[in-house]
């Protein structure tokens, strides 16, 4: 799984879910990006610095570290295997698949919205 991460799209999707009142999970850009990076490195160790390459634009080191601890490690989505090194768990892959569904839902909803907008 070495798909590219489109940060702008992830931001758009997160904003869409926020506009629906969903501020956690799919509506949280930090959660989306961390999970994307972890799933991109499925079966490999993800360095914290790699996560920060994507998240620095949105949050500081402290809040990403805190999110890793309070959400990803606590809920068992990722495990810390060394200092600054994480690996995604099976549960994390499930969360990542759900995230893909949320992106598809957003795209489908956007496409239909545009069709309706063009209908006189």
């Amino acid at each position, binding site marked *: 799984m070495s798909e590219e991460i489109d940060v702008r799209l992830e931001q758009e999707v997160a904003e869409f879910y926020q506009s629906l009142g969903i501020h956690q999970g799919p509506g949280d850009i930090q959660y989306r990006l961390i999970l994307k990076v972890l799933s991109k490195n499925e079966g490999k160790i993800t360095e914290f610095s790699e996560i920060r390459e994507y998240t620095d634009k949105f949050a500081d080191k402290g809040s990403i570290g805190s999110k890793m601890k309070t959400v990803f490690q606590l809920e068992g989505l990722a495990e810390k295997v060394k200092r600054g090194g994480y690996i995604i768990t099976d549960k994390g892959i499930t969360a990542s698949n759900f995230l893909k569904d949320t992106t598809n839902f957003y795209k489908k909803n956007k496409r239909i919205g545009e*069709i309706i907008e*063009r209908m006189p």
Partner: protein
Amino acid sequence: MSAGLLLNATICFAITISSFAFAWVLARSYPEHNDKSKPALWSLIALWSLVGLTYLPTTIRMIAAYMGDQRLDLMLYYVTAIPFSFVTVPLVFFILYVIIGDQKISGYISFLFVLFGATYLAFFYSSGVLGPVITPLSSLFTINSDIAINIYLIGLFVIPTAMIIGLLTLILLQRMPKRLRYRTALPLVAISFVFDFMLTDMITLDDAMQLAARIFVLIGTVQAFLAYFPPMTLQEKLGIKRYEYNLYEKEEDEEDTDLDNEDEEEADIIV
């Protein structure tokens, strides 16, 4: 000279009036639409105007048949073929534009249908028609060219109908508010109704079927009206009525007091 022909003329006249009126109402609502929907709006106006222009000479043709003027009947049949051949052009533009949102691509593809229409007309005029056969209900002509009929069936009928069904399916498969579903699906059903029965009307050699097709075209036009301007009773029945409301704004303190009072009342009831 049968009264059936007059009934036929009346139905054609009703279609003419209602399609022109609908086109006019749509044109008048132009400022209310956003820039994205304006190209589709213009194509709808063109579509309904072409429907009106097809049935206006047909009305006179039916009256001419009633009066026994076969020369005028034939001449107007040739005139009717012109707007009829190009009905698919705005229809194809409308569907493509709504789906893909690109004016240029939709324009180029609908231009192909101008060519289809022109080719149909070329074969139609060069081969001529057989008739008229005046029946108690109608005046019928037979197109004397197999190629024209094939172009008509494939280019002017099958492809646009498939496009309408495709768009309709796309909309019906989505979960969306009832009001939006009604607003988007019903115009398409109406257009499909009008379009398909217009083609049946033009190709059939059975007078009763032609009259029935014209009645359905009229029903389709009424449906289109209902799609854009649903009466209140229909809105209430279908649950698509927009509820008129004002935002409830109250001071926070007042609200807190209200909530406290409610809690107290509940406590009283429990006791």
